[in-house]
Structure formats: C-alpha cells, structure tokens
C-alpha cells in the first residue's frame, strides 16, 4: 500500500502541491495525469523522497522519510522524466547500476532479460551515449526493472515510480512498455506512472488521479475520472470520448477548433 496524506510542497516561494492525498494499491497501475505544470513530477519526487514536503508518506506501512536510502532502494525503483549520464558507460553497465542497488550483483542474467523485456535485445555492448532518445528511455526502464525484478519480495510488494515512461517511444514500444508495467502489477507489485497519453492511461491503468494546479481533482477508475467534462476543464480544450468498434474507449480532440474552448 502507498498512502500519502496532506502532501504540500513549496519550491521557491510558490506552493506547488497544495495538500494532496493519494492511495495506491499493489497489483494495480495507478496513473497520474494532468496538464503541464500541474505538479505531477513534483508529486512523484515527493513520493520518492526527492523533495522536502509536509504530510506523511507510507510505503508498505513504513514511513518513507524514516527509511535509509538502501532500504528504500530495495523496495522501490524510480524512472525520472529526464536523465543525463556522465561518462561513456555501455548499456550493460548502466543496467547493472540497478542490479547493485536491488538484489546484489549475483544475478548476472538479469540485465539481458530486462533488456529483452523492453525491446532492446543485444544492446548490451552499445555505448549509452550513442543511443537514440527512445532507446535511452528504455535502457533506464531496464535499469529500473533489474532493481526490483521480483514484484514481491519477502511477502511485501515492491514499487515502480515512472515519470512519463513512454514520452519518447513509438506506438509499438509504448504498448510494450505499458505491458511491462501492467505485468509487474499483475504479479503483485505496485506501479505509479505519470502519463500524458490519456488513451494508454484508459487502457492500462486501474486507477487514475487527475491533477490540476497542485491539487488532485479526480481520483478513481478511468471511467469515472476521464470524463469529457473533467478532461475538457483540466486541459482547457474540448475533448470527447468516442467508442471505436474494436478497441473501445478513445479520447479525441473535437475538430480543428478544439483549442478554442
């Protein structure tokens, strides 16, 4: 269980998060959606202990602020929105950084497995800095995967915090990565993912939190939260859910004048 209550974050005089309660269950993908600057990344950074915050965050019943860094690292992994890497590491060496943090270096087979899971088989020997943007993003996901390879460890679920995990991926790899996240959840782990793609969110998330200006204005199942009215208000444009005969829900902007609400 992830239980966050009364989260407030102030950065440089501005209150970015203005009192947030968020609950997430293991076994589910919980998505956080909302417009640019609404505070999604800041919320994720608060949840992972990266920024100072008021309020309490409990992960599997333990106060996150009281845990040592390595205890937390064994319990959850984090995929940041943007990552820079100093020095010319190979892909294998980057993925191994996660291995050392989680299970220990004993499982030498994991990096290869994780790279195959994210669609990068045989990339071990490539230099990270020479990869494309989408390849880099998936290397980091592989690093996150090896850190918490078993979704449940010693009877407790492990957690994956993903900030826009598919932002620079093509449609095939978007689906592949979301499936990896859902498989992790179905095997008993917890996934918190910041998302921009509402359709992927509707397809893969069990619960959705809609954020606007530092507050959560809607929380529940995708059907309850991703309504035409709520989305059009939050994103300040006219959005409408259609129903495609084969794939079901499909959220689309309305016409060329969609931006003029």
């Amino acid at each position: 269980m992830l239980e966050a209550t009364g989260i407030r974050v102030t950065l440089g005089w501005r209150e970015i998060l203005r009192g947030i309660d968020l609950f997430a269950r293991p076994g589910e993908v919980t998505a956080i959606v909302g417009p640019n600057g609404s505070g999604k990344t800041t919320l994720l950074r608060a949840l992972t202990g990266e920024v100072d915050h008021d309020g309490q965050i409990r992960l599997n019943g333990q106060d996150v602020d009281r845990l040592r860094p390595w205890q937390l690292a064994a319990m959850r992994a984090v995929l940041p929105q943007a990552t820079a890497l100093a020095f010319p590491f190979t892909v294998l060496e980057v993925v191994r950084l996660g291995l050392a943090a989680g299970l220990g270096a004993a499982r030498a087979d994991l990096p290869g497995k994780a790279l195959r899971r994210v669609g990068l088989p045989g990339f071990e020997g490539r230099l990270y800095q020479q990869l494309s943007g989408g390849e880099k993003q998936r290397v980091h996901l592989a690093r996150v995967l090896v850190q918490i390879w078993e979704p449940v460890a010693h009877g407790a679920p492990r957690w994956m915090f993903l900030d826009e995990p598919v932002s620079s991926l093509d449609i095939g790899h978007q689906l592949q990565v979301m499936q990896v996240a859902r498989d992790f959840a179905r095997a008993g782990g917890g996934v918190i993912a910041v998302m921009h793609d509402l359709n992927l969110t509707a397809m893969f998330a069990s619960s959705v939190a809609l954020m606007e200006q530092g507050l959560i204005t809607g929380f529940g199942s995708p059907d309850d939260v991703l309504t035409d009215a709520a989305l059009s208000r939050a994103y300040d444009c006219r959005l409408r859910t259609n129903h495609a005969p084969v794939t079901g829900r499909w959220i689309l902007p309305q016409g060329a004048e969609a931006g003029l609400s």
Partner: protein
Amino acid sequence: MSLLEQVRQPRRRGRAAVEAIAGDRTDRARLLTAALCAALVLVALASLGWGAADDTRALPALLSRFGLAEAELRDRVIVWGVRMPRMVLGVLVGAALAVTGAVMQGLFRNPLADPGLVGVSAGAGLGAVSGIVLAGALPALLTGWLGLWLVPAAAFAGGWTSTLLLYAIATRQGRTSVATMLLAGIALAALTGALTGIIVYRATDQQLRDLTFWGMGSLAGANWSRVMLAAPLILAALAAAPFLARALNALALGEAAAAHLGVPVQRMKTIAILTVAAAVGASVSVTGGIGFIGIVVPHLLRLMQGPDHRYLLPNAALLGALLLLLADGIARTVIAPAELPIGIVTATLGGPFFMWILLRNRAVMDL
C-alpha cells in the same frame, strides 16, 4: 576510423578474447591492472638506477641491504637514502593525484574536474605556504614536532576549504554546473594565488627558499621524513577510494537517481571531498603542484576500459604512479647532472597531450 574508436572497439577478434559478455569490460580492466602492476614494479626498480651516479652500481647497492651483494657505502646511501624515498614518494603522489582526479571527476560528473585545474591545489598551496610562514613565526620549541605537521595539516585545510567552496558554488538543487565550476575554479585559483602572493611577499629569505618549489612541483626534496609525512593522509585517501566506487558510478546518473539507487548521497559527497582534500593536501605539501596527472590518467583509462569506478580508481592509482615515475626519470636525466622540476615535465607533456585529446574528439567530448 579515429584512434579513439579503435581503442573503444578493438577488432572483432581482440574483443572476443577480452570481452566474454558484450558490454562487460571487467576482464579488460583486470588485464590492464595486471599489466600496470608489472610495469610499475619494473619502472620503480629501474628508477633506482636513474640519476647522476653510475647506474650499474644500483643493483648491488639495492641487494646489499639483504646481504646478497657487496656495495660501497656511498652507493648504498644514494640508493636507499635518496632514490628509494624519492621513488616511494613518486608512487604515493602519482597515485594520489590520479585517484583524486578520478574521484573529483566522478563527483562533479565532468571529465575536466581536476584538483589542479579548478583551484583545489591552489587552495592547498595557500594552506601550505601559510603553514611554512606560520611555522617560522612560532616559538622554536613548537616548530620541531608541530612544525613538521603544520604544513601538511594546513595544506589539507586549504584543499578541503576550496573543494567545499567549489562544490557549494557549482551545485544548485543537486545539479553541478560545469561552466559555474570552471569559472568558480578560476576565480578561486586567482584569489588563493593572490593571497599566496601576499604571504610570499612577507616571507623571509629562508622561507622563500622553502617556498620556491611550490610553484613548480618537484620530487627533488624527497627524503624518508617527507615520505612519512605524506604517507598517512595519502594512504588513508587511497584506502577510502574503493568505498566510493559504487556510489560514484551511481552518481553518473545525477544525485537524485543515485539516491534512488540507495546511495547515501550527502554522506558520500562528504567522504569524497575529504578524500580529495587529504590526498591533494598531502601531495601538495610535500611536492608542490604537479599538474595534468589527475586529468590525463583517468581520461586515458576511460578510453581503454570504460568509466566503471570500481576498476578506474585502482588502475588510476597504478597508472598515475607509473607516469609520475617516468616523468621524474625525464626530469632528472634530460639536463643531467642538473634536474628539472617535475611539474615542468608533466605540464610540457600533459598539456599538448590533453589538447590533442580535445582536438581529436571534438564530437564526443561530452564524456
């Protein structure tokens, strides 16, 4: 294909032999460790024969200590009392400079961070110079024991203060700005240089003689008491370095990501800064400023074996010691029987070498 690419991607056959798993450069690094160990032992022994005295007599003089050969007293003194401490000091200081270079580059996530370039050595120099002048002002009673330790301690304090200042100025919200770091380093070096100048200006003639070798860096003054003075701090720093390796690897992803990987970032930064200050302070206090070892050695090794600090740090110690001994060999033979300050040798060789690296790899300089 540029040389860089050849080094990184050796021909298929060579790679298959060295790299059991693709992307795994561990075996390559281990091979290099073995080769560097062997080379260091050879060069260290050979260095006992370099110098103004006839070198065929060095071996008997070396062995005479163990009763294995006969040698004149004069040769024994030259080998055991002069060249041996010089060799040991060279190994210690070379290792210290290269390892602190690598640690600082890891800490700042930048291959240009070098104690010599960004003003840490200048800070240590200021400390040392203050120490020398202060020791002269102390009552004679104190200068004996305390005076001996005052200089390294002051150099340590100077190096520590400037590293801390530099990190504080260059780091905002967990991100270290390269431009800010280099600029702050230049400002810091200028300031400490000016303060050093003021102190030197106020020094007596005797103190001035003590101070001259700071500017250029030299192993010429090596003796066993200097070795004993520098060894504890340098060895402590070298012993601490392996514990930093994992954390420095994680830090390549940035401070936040390193924390998510379980690294106690703040504590690790403190240890890294203390390590750098101890090793640079001790080196500068016994040999003055010797440039470029700290920047060239880690750079070469990253090209040959990759940036994994678990292997980079030990191999940097070996290669740093090796290069400094070789530079010292040049320093004391090229204008024999006189000798050059070693700092001049490392700068004349290291400067162009570094420029060559920069020119050669303009496209991939974001190492």
